């Protein structure tokens, strides 16, 4: 799928491995509400099912997130995108890329997959209309070469959706 981007697949460092194993154990014991991790033996790519929160525009809709971890996670942010079809949302492009500051410039190693998921769900939940970002076509065109969203120079949409 062209939308999945092409994260450089350097194997996880020892530190990254240990940290992800911890996160996985923690997730299994205490998964964030509305999310399901599809178990695979690939620690470096997680596929996570998201269910729209009740009472929001996305209630009962199911989407899939693909999370790819870089070699030096958590010192670098993971690449997080929606697999197609991506939810219709003013911060989500039709190729699955998500405009959310914590995934790029505002990343901090104290964040976890779980906290990212909660941010994404809250972004979905606070949306008041189902539509694509205004620059969707231009942006998606620019990503045709399989560029990762992490290579985009984001200017972040208004937080107030």
């Amino acid at each position: 799928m062209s939308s999945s981007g092409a994260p450089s697949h350097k194997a996880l460092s020892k530190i990254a491995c240990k940290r992800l194993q911890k996160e996985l154990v923690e997730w299994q014991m205490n998964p964030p509400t509305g999310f399901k991790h599809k178990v695979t033996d690939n620690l470096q790519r997680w596929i996570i099912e998201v269910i729209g929160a009740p009472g929001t525009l996305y209630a009962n809709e199911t989407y899939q997130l693909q999370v790819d971890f870089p070699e030096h996670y958590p010192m670098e942010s993971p690449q997080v995108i929606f697999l197609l079809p991506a939810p219709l949302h003013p911060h989500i492009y039709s190729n699955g890329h998500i405009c959310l500051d914590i995934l790029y410039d505002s990343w901090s190693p104290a964040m976890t997959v779980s906290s990212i998921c909660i941010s994404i769900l809250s972004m979905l939940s606070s949306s008041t209309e189902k539509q694509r970002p205004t620059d969707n076509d231009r942006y998606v065109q620019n990503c045709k070469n399989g560029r990762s969203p992490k290579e985009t120079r984001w200017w972040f949409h208004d937080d107030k959706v």
Partner: protein
Amino acid sequence: MVVTGAASAMAAKQAERLKEDGNSCFKKERFGAAIDAYTEAITLSPKVPVYWTNRALCHMKRKDWTRVEEDCRKAVQLDHNSVKAHYMLGLALLQREDYADGVKALQRALDLGRGANPTGYMVEEIWEELAKAKYMEWELASARRSWELNSLKGTCEAALNQQRALDMSQTEESSEEAYTSHTEQLKALDRVFEKAAEDDKPTEVPDYLCCNITLEIFRDPVISPSGVTYERAAILEHINKVGKFDPITREKLDPSKLVPNLAIKEAVASYLEKHVWAYKVGS
């Protein structure tokens, strides 16, 4: 006197050169040649601890543990604060299954290795070896303890049941009351033994003893000006790679502002003493 002074200065210089030779042989993995060079350096200048620890490292590469131990003991004599000497001594002692002294040496290395000195910061390496040894000991000891508890519990239950049988044979009618008190006693016994086994039951290490970046129990905790505690190596890497801000509060953070969190260090030490299983590395 002047002559000997000059001669010993020359010997020291020559020894340094030999050490450099040894180091370059070591890098090429020519351990035999490196050992020869360090040995010559030691002959010229026997009081320089680094010559001994460097030679010990070569012996370690060749798994010659007896010599590792000898050289490290000498280095420790010359420099009580040598992290490497205590570390390799610990490994050598563990190799010959001198468990208690090995752990002691590793613990000393860890204590000495904690701190701001960025060159040769080997806390994680030392921690892993110490943790491995501690965890192995715990596995053996806890299996023994659990066996002891189980057999003791069996004996206690049998005694209670016997007492109960005796009571019943002495009183004509079996009273409801006696029956209840007997089952209560058995339940209480259960609780007592469960409680006794608690410390040996691996659970989760409390979050406040774990770093928010590594998610692991602290080895060398430091506290930021915002009041958040991090693993030293992890927060330094964050400052270097991500930016000079506190990962939790996002306040500005300069590495010089990090100070050791001694209270958490103590708390971790006492937790580990009681819950040795928490030394388990990885999952």
